[in-house]
């Protein structure tokens, strides 16, 4: 067994026992990246020198007996979370040379907990996409099958975890961007409750939907990461001043009387791949075998989630992305002409096609005369979707569904048609619209050997029950030993 294969919890125990040094662990992960990432392309940049320096500091902390919950643990960070002195590109030409002068709050928290950031992970440009094919910089291959995408938008983070090129990762989830790539790469990924984790230093896509969250090799690792990154932040006025429990300790408590709800609307969805349907049904049987009651619930407005989301998210994006003007940072097209020409040329050459498409949709939906028909209407439907969940959670504690209607598509299979790609987000968008926490935990494989994830969601701030159920399921399903076929 190589150190890079360890989970965070396993590595932490060995580090505490001084049977492994943080430097050895980081070198092992850097070696794995060196061997594999040319093929996979999970990382946009690898900060080897900074990582080794942080690992040595971690070893000193162990010597002093001052280790924290993530001391010496090598992590990947999606490349839209600001890291002081390390380029943060959003996988976009427009930010290709941007080096943030500050750390995001989650990065400060990781550093305080002793973590080692090994590099910045690839993604769809500005997190807009479901396959990572919209990265303006490079493709990322699914570690389970190089002809398939890793999912997106946090595809680099998920692929890096799956391929043992880090022990855990941070991603961001605006419409499924943590859960869906976690599902496609066979790892665990959690989108926390909106406001649970500070967004300060997260490059904004759709501010009322964006949330940073962990990806890991196990539910336990995600629980530990979540405990570290959660909490109120005076620099993010939407972060919520709720106390942060120790999510990892909560994992080992008795499950108690838990009911799982299964939306009838999701079980009859058109376009649901038979392998996904079978894997989810097996997961339901496994969960029932744990003594958990399963019952039907209704989410009658869930069918409108894609339409509501693809008004709200592009609208917010068109406003947020107005800041990329070639003046303060990033790319400028220096072709001459006046200020307005500079803006237009910079933005048209700096943004990729999907980003421009969403800016145009958002500009249209917010424009005078159309605002009520689109943005206001979508925001009303959003309220109905949230009410659906509130009603459903009166009769259950956790809601279960697929994460994605199919396993990871092949390159080019869906990304060429934007609407087809948007429709693949059907199961994940609702949690963002409602602001509730949701996670993906591996629940099987397709006949072609691609991973399939199970989605569990809970009421606002219900992360504890979510992680508990996922943890029990994960132990019962016993899929954790399965690794992608990589020789490295």
């Amino acid at each position, binding site marked *: 067994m190589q150190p890079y294969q360890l989970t965070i919890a396993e590595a932490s125990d060995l580090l505490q026992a001084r049977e492994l040094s943080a430097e050895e662990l980081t070198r092992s992960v850097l070696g794995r990246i060196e061997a594999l990432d040319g093929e996979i392309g999970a990382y946009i940049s690898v900060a080897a020198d900074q990582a080794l320096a942080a690992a040595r500091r971690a070893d000193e902390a162990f010597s002093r007996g001052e280790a924290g919950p993530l001391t010496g643990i090598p992590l990947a960070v999606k490349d839209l979370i600001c890291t002081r002195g390390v380029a943060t590109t959003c996988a976009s030409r427009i930010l290709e040379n941007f080096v943030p002068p500050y750390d995001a709050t989650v990065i400060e928290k990781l550093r305080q907990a002793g973590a080692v950031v090994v590099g910045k992970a690839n993604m769809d440009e500005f997190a807009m996409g479901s396959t990572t094919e919209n990265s303006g910089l490079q493709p990322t291959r699914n570690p389970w099958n190089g002809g398939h995408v890793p999912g997106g938008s946090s595809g680099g983070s998920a692929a890096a975890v799956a391929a043992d090129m880090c022990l855990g990762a941070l991603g961001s989830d605006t419409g499924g961007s943590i859960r869906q790539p976690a599902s496609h790469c066979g790892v665990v990924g959690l989108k926390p409750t909106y406001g649970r984790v500070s967004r300060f230093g997260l490059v904004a896509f759709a501010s009322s939907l964006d949330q940073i969250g962990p990806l890991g090799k196990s539910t336990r690792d995600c629980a530990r990461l979540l405990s570290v990154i959660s909490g109120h932040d005076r620099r993010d006025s939407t972060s919520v001043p709720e106390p942060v429990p120790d999510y990892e300790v909560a994992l080992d408590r008795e499950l108690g009387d838990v009911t799982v709800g299964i939306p009838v609307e999701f079980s009859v969805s058109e376009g649901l791949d038979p392998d996904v349907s079978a894997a989810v049904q097996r997961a339901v049987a496994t969960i029932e075998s744990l003594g958990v009651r399963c019952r039907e619930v209704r989410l009658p407005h869930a069918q409108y989630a894609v339409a509501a989301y693809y008004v709200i998210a592009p609208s917010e994006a068109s406003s947020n992305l107005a800041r990329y003007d070639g*003046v303060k940072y990033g790319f400028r097209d220096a072709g001459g002409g006046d200020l307005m020409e500079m803006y237009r040329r910079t933005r048209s050459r700096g943004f990729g096609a999907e980003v421009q498409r969403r800016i145009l949709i958002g500009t249209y939906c917010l424009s005078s005369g159309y605002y009520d*028909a689109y943005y206001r209407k979508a925001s009303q439907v959003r309220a109905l979707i949230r009410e659906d969940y509130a009603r459903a959670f009166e009769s259950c504690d956790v809601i279960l569904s697929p994460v994605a209607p199919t396993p990871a598509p092949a390159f080019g299979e869906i990304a060429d048609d934007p609407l087809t790609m948007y429709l693949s987000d059907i199961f994940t968008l609702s949690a963002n619209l409602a602001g509730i926490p949701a996670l993906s935990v591996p629940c099987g494989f397709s006949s072609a050997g691609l991973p399939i994830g199970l989605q569990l969601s809970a009421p606002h701030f219900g992360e504890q029950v979510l992680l508990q159920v996922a943890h029990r399921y994960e132990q019962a399903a016993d899929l954790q030993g399965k690794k992608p076929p990589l020789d490295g």
Partner: protein
Amino acid sequence: MADLARLELDDEAVETFVGQIGRILEYVATLESVDTDGVEPMSHAISLKNAFRPDEPGEHLDNAEALANAPEKDDRSFLVPRVVG
């Protein structure tokens, strides 16, 4: 729209985007069938009151740090193409 969004599209891009965005907006129009009479629009996931804090000076980036990423600058300002006249 491209003008409002400060984008410059060539004819080919206009044609592609018009088709794709047309189909997306057609799909989005399914929202019209939802009865939303009397439903308060939801702009945020969590109901929070305004988050106030005292207006006190704190740490901030110095001039050089703030200018470090600028595509064009002098020693104290961002430089932009001529705006007036």
